[in-house]
């Protein structure tokens, strides 16, 4: 596994390499090291463990904080995978916009459907 801060790039320093690639095709390529990915995975695993922990009400009663806490943990996991593993943090913003458009539309579809069931049926 590579343990450098970013991918190796012999003929350029890291900022130079990123600048070189941005200049030519608008995509940042200074991807993180393998060790950084492992650290993100450990954080994801810890959050998942905490999520599962909420299921055992006999240990801790989360009360009204349960649903907001679960949604918060889900959003953090979603964000970490999308930005680090899918490289949205390092790639062109256009890719992120395409994905966000789909997410926003999906949320819109749910809200519209919900209003249909709540108010129109």
């Amino acid at each position, binding site marked *: *596994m*590579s343990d450098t801060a970013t*991918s*190796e*790039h012999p003929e350029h320093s890291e900022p130079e390499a990123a600048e070189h*690639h941005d200049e*030519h*095709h*608008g*995509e940042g*390529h200074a*991807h993180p090291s*393998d060790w950084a*990915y*492992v650290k*993100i*995975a450990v954080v*994801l*695993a810890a959050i*998942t463990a905490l*999520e*599962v922990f*909420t*299921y055992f009400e006999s240990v801790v009663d989360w009360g009204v904080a*349960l*649903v907001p806490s*679960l*949604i918060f*943990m*889900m959003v953090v*996991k*979603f964000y970490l*995978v*999308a930005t*680090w*593993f*899918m*490289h949205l943090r390092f*790639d*062109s913003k*256009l*890719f992120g916009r*395409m*994905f*966000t*458009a*789909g*997410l926003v*539309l*999906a*949320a819109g*579809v*749910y809200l519209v*459907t*919900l209003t249909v*069931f709540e108010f129109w049926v």
Partner: protein
Amino acid sequence: MSAEAVTADLDHTADDHGHEEHATTTGLSHTKLAMWVFLGSECLLFGGLISTYLLYKTRGNGRTLPTDVFDIPFTSVSSFVLLMSSLTMVLALSAVTRGEAEAGRTWLLATALLGGVFIGGQVYEFTAFVREGVAFTTNPASSAFFTLTGFHGVHVSLGIVMLMSLFVASLKGKLTQRNAETVEIVGLYWHFVDIVWIFIFTVIYLIPAD
């Protein structure tokens, strides 16, 4: 060199690190852009399926609901396995980008195997549910549940097929630094499948039905 060959070379060249230069109107890889557009459209598909389940989850018609038979500890292990497959996927891409073919192959195979374990778990879960009286046509809630999780399972299975294709290509020496973007594109699909499960696990399994 013919004019076509020069054009093809300009359209799709790579440096020594697997970073492809794209002579496109956007300066970006259009293949990758197309994958992101596809993933955006997939959000709509899963958004619709998740919405349907949320709207129908309490409609049991007097029969057993999926939420009554959930085995959270078991599903938690499956979720953990799928989450870790995202790590192995990104390590595969990292290895291929560095030109380490053998390491890339190992991580690709590990990702496919973890995906296989997840699918095995889903088959077991579905079988257990049917045995406990929750089948596809039991009630609207079960239909919505099996449709949602079944579609997700099909996506994971297709991902495994893509991963194994890359593995075979690598064995034949056809997967090099030069076409690392292919691994990245399959990786995007795989991570998306993981992201969808992150959502399903919380919203469908962990948040109480009432």
